[in-house]
Every structure is written in structure tokens, then in C-alpha cells.
């Protein structure tokens, strides 16, 4: 990885990613922070592409940008009376110190450790290999992940939906007539 293109791509993507992350940090507006987060996700996806992990990059876009961000936007919209600011708590300065320490420690480890043999050429055809190892070596974790996702789905639905009597009381407060005839959910 020493071509001009690689340098250009890495440094621009690194600036975008870290800059967007810092944007989240300083932004006072939750939606602006959200946009920054999305930008950061996209930057990371670009870095994955640079690392020849096309599959992971696409999954990153699909899941983080396409699903998780949208979920978070929905959550922001569904909490209308909550504060929309993105201010800090009293943990601000301890947080800054901790952040500095963690970054320093990790960077030290990253730079001082001998990571052994470095592979020059990336492994090709990542999607097929990932798929094969998912259903060969990692079939049990794969199943567990599936169960976890289902459990999370059910849990999220169970948490987020109102109780039945809640809905009844709510609807009665809304209208004098029943809404049985409105057909389907809306």
C-alpha cells in the first residue's frame, strides 16, 4: 500500500472519519450529530474498501447507514419533547482525561508491538470465503447470532409497544367513536 492513490484515499478518509467523529463530540444539535455519525460510518466503509474488505464495506453501509442510522433518527423523532441538544454531563472533564489516556495507551501499544509477518496482497473473493466459514467453522456462533437478533427484535418490540389497556385509554381520550372500522394498522 504505497501508491499515490492509497495515500490519497487513506488520508482523506481518515480526516473525514475522525473529523466527523469530532463533529459528534462538539455538536450541540442531536440531528447534526446524527449526520456526522452517518458521515463517520461512510468514512469507515471507505476504509474497509481500502483494506480490500468489500463485503464488510457493503455490509457497513447496509447495516449502519441504511438501518441503524434510520432507527436512531426514528428514535429522535419519536421522543419529541426530549431535549434535542447534545450537551455534556458533569463527566465532561473526566471523560476528556479518560479519552486522552485510552488513546495514548492504545496508540503506544499499536506502535510499539511487533505485529509479525505482514501480508502484502489481500485475500481475494472475500464474500465467498466469509460465507463458507460462516456455515463451516462458525456455524454455531452464526446460529447464536441469529437467535440473538431474533431475541433483540422481540425484546425491542415488547419494550416499545404500549400495553393494551394503555392503548384503549389513549384511544378513548382521542375520539368519541371507536376506531374499529378504520381497517388495518396505520
Amino acid at each position, binding site marked *: 500500500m504505497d501508491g499515490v492513490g492509497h495515500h490519497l484515499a487513506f488520508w482523506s478518509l481518515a480526516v473525514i472519519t475522525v473529523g466527523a467523529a469530532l463533529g459528534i463530540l462538539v455538536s450541540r444539535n442531536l440531528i447534526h450529530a446524527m449526520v456526522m455519525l452517518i458521515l463517520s460510518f461512510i468514512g469507515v466503509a471507505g476504509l474497509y474498501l481500502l483494506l480490500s474488505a468489500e463485503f464488510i464495506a457493503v455490509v457497513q453501509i447496509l447495516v449502519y447507514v441504511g438501518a441503524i442510522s434510520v432507527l436512531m433518527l426514528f428514535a429522535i423523532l*419519536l421522543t419529541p419533547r426530549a431535549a434535542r441538544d447534545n450537551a455534556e454531563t458533569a463527566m465532561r472533564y473526566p471523560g476528556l482525561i479518560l479519552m486522552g489516556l485510552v488513546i495514548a495507551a492504545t496508540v503506544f501499544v499499536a506502535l510499539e508491538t511487533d505485529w509479525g509477518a505482514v501480508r502484502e496482497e489481500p485475500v481475494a473473493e472475500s464474500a465467498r470465503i466469509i460465507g463458507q466459514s460462516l456455515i463451516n467453522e462458525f456455524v454455531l456462533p452464526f446460529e447464536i447470532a441469529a437467535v440473538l437478533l431474533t431475541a433483540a427484535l422481540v425484546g425491542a418490540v415488547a419494550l416499545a409497544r*404500549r400495553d393494551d389497556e394503555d392503548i384503549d385509554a389513549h384511544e378513548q381520550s382521542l375520539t368519541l367513536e371507536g376506531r374499529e372500522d378504520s381497517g388495518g394498522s396505520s
Partner: protein
Amino acid sequence: MTIGLEHFLVLGALLFGVGLYVALAKRNAIGVLMGVELMLNAVNLTLVAFGRFVESEVALSTSVFVVFIIAVAAAEIAVGLALAMVVYRNRDTINVDRVNLLKW
């Protein structure tokens, strides 16, 4: 200078640090979740970088790991946001400072 493993590791460390700060210090529950996502992304980036640069027994096992992390992150964010919604519905706020019923 060649772009090598260290570049990506340092980048991951920076991202992780920022994510940690956001998760620790932000007041809004959704802001906190953003920080968590950022940290997970940093970890994923590090893993993919290792998978790219370091020889391993099983090809691309790091990528498989990343796929699992992304799955878990999706689950985590779904539950986390549902919790935020419930807190909002009961307490009318998602300010983590004011959600302190378990504190006393």
C-alpha cells in the same frame, strides 16, 4: 512511507477514544448510543486491518468476527433505542442525568 497496519490501528484508537468520550459524557441517551456505535466501528476497523495485514490460520476469520459484531451492534441498538423510548414514555425525558431511579 507505506500505509501499513499502524496507520489503521492509530486511526481506530482515535475513533475509539472519541466514541468513549461521547458515550461517557453526553447527556442525551441517543447521543450516548452514538458513542457506543462509534466505539464498535473503531473495533471493527482494527479487526479488518489485522485481517488484511497479518497472516492467520483461517482466512478472513477477522471479517467473520466483524460480521458478528455488526449483527450484535444491530441488536444492541434496537434494544437500546427501545429502552430509550420506554424511558421517554415514562419519564418524559431521555436525559441520562435525570434517569436516576436506581441510584438511591
